[in-house]
């Protein structure tokens, strides 16, 4: 896999590789916190509402704890997002310097929406103790919508890199006729946004459910855990089939819009009809062939165009210097994403049928183990999906317009390697720290559950507050 893939990197400036590695690392880190930022507020508000309506302290406890976890992930997400904003200039001055005026506006929109979200989240988290219950709920209600708006804008910026729109390039190579609104509503936006939003809700929901399933497996079969499983798992179960359809539409759209990416993710080497669906295998860029893998005749053509006679252009039609630099990675990432999607489909069918029959968490160990791993699986799918999008776009940073090496900074490669190593180290500690803190949090909560079972979630008002502090 190493021999020829980096051929275009050898010709490229030395700083390109560390810059790409750093961008990839920081983005893949940031995206871990994003689904929580988008979807956890929805779940906590559902629990909050249930709790208030039915006077259910267990649901309120869940809501309260989820909001606290959301606060922590939000803080780390914000810091890692700040890193990304800097990197748009530190690493890719060629991109922001030239095209900032075209695709920058959604970032400005996002900035404000995240600001709004940060404010509302702060009010919600720090308001549990003293705000009136319903006031508190209503103040929290806008959070999911603001979060979705933020995701919309940022995905729009990414979709623009895939399907650039809203400008023309004149004879001197200058960017003119800028229309930032046309850039926001580019062709890739609808499918990327729909697909990502569903993915974010799935990732957060499955992860939360997984955590309580682990507790359930350890024998903590109380109402607290039951609710903690049922609320998120129901959300996720409804979304998986939706995602199957949306993912399919996305693939068909990529087939039309970005044929080179499609050819890479399905390793289509020779153009033609009756294309087989190749599962895994290894792409050899020297000979443009695939070694190994399982081949299903005709399926790829059928998926792309609804019939085996669909003509699918292959990598042979892409000049070698314009082929994605690492086809094998893109292809594996795609297969992993779809594979996990299929597994999750089985899981939600299982849960759906079992819940419909017994109205409870299914009491089957295989199911429980499966559900316990669903959170991690979904996250792997999310990361894999982004690898398809981003690595599959290479060597373009703006599809068919600007190559990544034209955008990279001229800063010395040595400096970049140092900053990359430092960031990698720091993120490792940050990740360990976050996990440690989240675990300490859950341990503390468990202890407090044993000492006072029905702790009053709202209030007590300041007058009695002291009695509540006792651990």
């Amino acid at each position, binding site marked *: 896999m190493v021999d020829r893939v980096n051929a275009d990197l050898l010709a490229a400036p030395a700083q390109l590789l560390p810059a790409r590695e750093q961008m990839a690392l920081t983005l893949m880190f940031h995206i871990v916190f994003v689904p929580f930022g988008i979807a956890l507020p929805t779940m906590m508000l559902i629990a909050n509402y249930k709790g208030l309506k039915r006077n259910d302290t267990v649901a309120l406890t869940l809501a*309260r704890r989820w909001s*606290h976890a959301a606060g*922590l992930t*939000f*803080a780390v997400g914000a*810091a890692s997002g*700040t*890193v990304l*904003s*800097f990197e*748009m*200039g*530190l690493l890719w*001055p*060629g991109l*922001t*310097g*030239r*095209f*900032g*005026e075209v695709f*920058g*506006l959604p*970032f*400005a*929109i*996002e*900035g*404000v929406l*995240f*600001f*709004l979200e940060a*404010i509302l989240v*702060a*009010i919600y988290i*720090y*308001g549990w103790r*003293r705000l009136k219950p319903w006031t508190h709920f209503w*103040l929290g209600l806008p959070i999911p919508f603001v979060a979705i708006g933020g995701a919309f804008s940022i995905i729009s910026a990414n979709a623009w890199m895939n399907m650039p729109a809203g400008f023309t390039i004149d004879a001197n190579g200058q960017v*003119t006729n*800028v229309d*930032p*609104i046309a850039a926001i509503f580019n062709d890739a936006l609808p499918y990327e946004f729909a697909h990502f939003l569903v993915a974010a809700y799935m990732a957060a929901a499955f992860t939360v459910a997984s955590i309580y399933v682990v507790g359930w497996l350890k024998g903590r079969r109380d109402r607290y855990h039951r609710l903690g499983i049922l609320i998120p798992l129901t959300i996720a179960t409804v979304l998986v089939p939706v995602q199957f359809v949306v993912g399919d539409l996305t693939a068909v759209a990529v087939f039309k819009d970005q044929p080179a990416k499609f050819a890479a993710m399905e390793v289509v080497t020779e153009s033609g009809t009756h294309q087989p669906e190749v599962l895994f295998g290894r792409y050899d860029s020297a000979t443009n062939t695939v070694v190994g893998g399982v081949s299903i005749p005709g399926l790829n053509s059928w998926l792309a165009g609804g019939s085996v006679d669909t003509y699918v252009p292959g990598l042979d039609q892409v000049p070698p210097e314009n082929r994605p630099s690492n086809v094998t990675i893109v292809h594996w990432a795609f297969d992993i994403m779809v594979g996990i999607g299929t597994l999750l489909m089985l899981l939600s069918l299982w849960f759906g049928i079992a819940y419909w029959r017994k109205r409870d968490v299914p009491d089957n160990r295989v199911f429980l183990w499966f559900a316990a791993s669903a959170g991690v699986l979904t996250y792997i799918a999310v990361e894999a999906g982004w690898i398809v999008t981003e690595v599959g776009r290479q060597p373009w940073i703006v599809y068919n317009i600007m190559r990544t090496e034209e955008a990279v*900074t*001229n*800063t010395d490669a040595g*400096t970049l390697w140092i900053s990359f190593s*430092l*960031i990698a180290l*720091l993120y490792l500690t*940050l990740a360990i*720290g*976050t996990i440690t*803190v989240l675990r*300490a*949090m859950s*341990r503390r*909560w468990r202890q407090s559950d044993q000492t006072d079972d029905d*702790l009053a979630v709202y209030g007590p008002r300041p007058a009695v507050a002291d009695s509540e*502090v006792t651990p």
Partner: protein
Amino acid sequence: MNTAIAVAGVMMLALTLYACTGIADYGAGFWDLTAGGRDRGRLPRSLIDNAVTPVWEANHVWLIYVLVVCWTGFGSTFASVMSTLYIPLALALLGIVLRAAGFAMSKDAARARMRHLAGWLFGIGSFLTPFCLGTAVGAVLTGRIPVGNAAGDEITSWLNPSSILVGLLTVAIGAYVSAVYLLAEAHRHGTAALHGYFRLRARAAGVAGLLLGIGVLIALYADERQMADRVVQRGWPLLLLSLALLAGSFWLATGVRVWLMRLVAAGGIAALVWAWAVAQYPYLLPFSLTVQDGAADPATLRWLLIWFVAALVLVVPALTLLFWLDQRGELGEDPATSRPEPVEPEPVETETIR
């Protein structure tokens, strides 16, 4: 007014707000770092923690907004600054992540040792970030950023007397405003023991800032005469205003006028920031790129302004609500989910600490 200048004004406004809030947070971190041993520092630390917590992220979004407006409205300036100043800006970033790590961990870390480490990370980040951001401002001010991809000198652009002094000045500014804010907080919480503590520190940081400001001017004279002249000739009313407000805050600190004192201190910083803006005008990058030449397409500028107005309508009420609830004491750490420890500094201790 033309759109390019309006957008530049919006950017400066966000930068001003960042200087008065975000930089102040770093100042609070600085006082946290220097508060001394665990026992001695307990009371001031708990006040700092309590003051910073609820509004923590909100204060830092201003910086992000500045960056984003800069690359959308003035892309080539953004690219030139970020690429030439890779090192200080990457270090500032490091500081931001360190702080976040420290902050997040100190909130919930169970073990004392880890919380101690978290405090250190928080403190180091609190110094590194304002210092590096300040040197970057110094590099722009002294005209060391040419247009282009890493076209300037990666080292001397920010490691020179003027830029270093601006960096230190930024740290001092943060320390000063935050000490004033913390004095007000101490008053609000009735922690009389901390009055003298933060009053002393506010004054010390204020004097340090004044001396560093004078130092910056002297260095600028030796370094980039033309800019020094502009700062003095155009900026003098603002500089005087800043000085007067500094003195005013010293005076108000004696009687602790909670709101007025904070406004006056923030106003002094704002005047200083605008003295910089006025001196540089009409240049984005002195003396090679003007606001007009560096600006984005008019359509983009127009949308940035429209969105700015929309943003005001969205954010101002929310922010007002946050500060209002916070000041009324409606917001606080949630004892049922946070680490069990006294959330607020114990009220009224009689002995005074220094």
